[in-house]
């Protein structure tokens, strides 16, 4: 079966600065794939290249069609949910309005209602805080709201950019627990960018390590976890 997402020789640049030299990765249906690497290795840019926020050369194939030149809004319609760096919440909208925005591309009102209820089941605190502005939430709550909002879109592929950033270890675990559950129970496909390799490798099936805009190492998460050299030189633990 063809993978859900495939990048072949993708290059991306911000003006004169080349951020991705040559990135090739695949994400299969139902997989959790981690994208690891140091700051500036091109992890965030890879996600931005996939969702059409930076212009790229090379091939980006999603769900069987070439989407290199597709706009973010079109990809959202194709079932790609991207929780960007900084979470991309709407600080002046309420928690509930943020969630509703997640369902913007959907036309099935009843299904949306079910999924909104389901989001509240995953994150029960949302119920009491639904009328609060998103800006008033704590960092962990904001991250969970961003994930919940992405789930309301019923994505085929969920992309998370550094969900652990700025969160306490316990909160980070909570976020990854939800990701793991969704993958196990509903077969959600996830591509997650992480600095915290340790936790990312426990949740993911496979992982890529990026170094200055190229894939340096790839393999199953179990292998990478065990591999002493990879851990020392790339993952820093």
């Amino acid at each position, binding site marked *: 079966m063809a993978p859900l997402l495939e990048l072949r020789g993708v290059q991306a640049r911000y003006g004169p600065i080349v951020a991705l030299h040559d990135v090739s990765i695949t994400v299969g249906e139902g997989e959790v794939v981690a994208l690891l690497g140091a700051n500036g290795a091109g992890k965030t840019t890879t996600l931005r290249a996939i*969702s059409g*926020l930076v212009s790229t050369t090379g091939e980006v194939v999603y769900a069987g069609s070439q989407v290199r030149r597709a*706009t*973010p*809004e079109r990809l*959202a*319609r194709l079932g790609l*949910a*991207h929780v*960007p760096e900084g979470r*991309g*919440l*709407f*600080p*002046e*909208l309420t928690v509930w*309005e943020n969630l*509703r*925005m*997640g369902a*913007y*591309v959907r036309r099935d009102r009843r299904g949306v209602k079910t999924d909104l209820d389901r989001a509240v089941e995953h994150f029960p605190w949302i119920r009491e805080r639904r009328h609060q502005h998103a800006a008033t939430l704590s960092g962990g709550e904001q991250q969970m709201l961003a994930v919940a909002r992405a789930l309301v*879109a019923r994505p085929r592929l969920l992309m998370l950019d550094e969900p652990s950033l700025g969160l306490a270890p316990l909160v980070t675990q909570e976020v990854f627990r939800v990701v793991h559950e969704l993958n196990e129970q509903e077969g959600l496909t996830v591509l997650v960018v992480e600095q915290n390799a340790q936790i990312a490798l426990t949740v993911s099936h496979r992982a890529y390590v990026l170094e200055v805009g190229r894939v340096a190492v790839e393999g199953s998460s179990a292998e990478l976890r065990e591999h002493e050299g990879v851990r020392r030189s790339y993952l820093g633990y």
Partner: protein
Amino acid sequence: MLPLAFTWSDFFQQVVFGLAIGAVYASLALAIVLIYRTTHVVNFAQGEMATFTTYIAWTLTANHGWSFWPAFFATIVIAFGLGAATERVIIRPFERGDPLTLILVTIALFVIFNGLIQWIWGPEQKVFLGAFTPKPFDIGGVAISRQDVGVIVVTLITVTVLWLFFRFTKLGLAMRAAAIAPVASRLMGVRVGWMYAAGWGFAASLGAVSGMMVAPVVSLSPSMLQSVLVYAFAAAVLGGIESPVGAVVGGLLLGLATTLLGAYVSFIGVDLELPVAFSVLILVLLFRPAGLLGRQVLRRV
């Protein structure tokens, strides 16, 4: 000019008149706020666009025999299209421009719409028949103009409908989201450009309402809304330029204050209404640089 002897009935008439004028300022101010929030442009052409659409309403009623209300609603729809098209065709190429360049772009629009009005309909005044007869109500011995009450009611309904739209509809929510965080909105699947166009469309519709409300009072002319626009700016700034509630409150207060000052303070009279209003505005800005209801914005280093 000597002030009239004070009577309560006269005072109430002045209050209602002031609120009616204030309602017109408020809807134009709201249009300015709407555009500022969606595209961060201060639209100096707002008044001329409104006047242009009011002429369309005039054409429908005077030349094509429509009655007022069908023409009113048709004009609102046409204005929406005009506003949205203006954003797509003229504002969009300057999207990434400097704010000062954008001010000049809307000034160019001001000149163009004013020119188009004179070109199409001529520079002379026209009689615009409104929906309300000037015949007054009699409430407890006080004669209250139907016209004034009508203007207040129509404005309140318009503002309420708009509020409901932004609060409860999916499109309204997406428009707010696009104004707050365009990139995040795109990731949600929102076509941000069209949201901006819709913002301009709604603003133009609001402007059309204010134009059609004021035209029966002051009679239709190409410069009909120029001084109204100045007050609308003042109202928008009083409210902090990003606050819709502030714009409406600011507009009503300004209408009330200038009317009462003009009527009861002989020194001020009609000529000094505008200077007094603006001196107040400048004073407010001195003590609350972000307006009465605005948030304080931190300046970047």
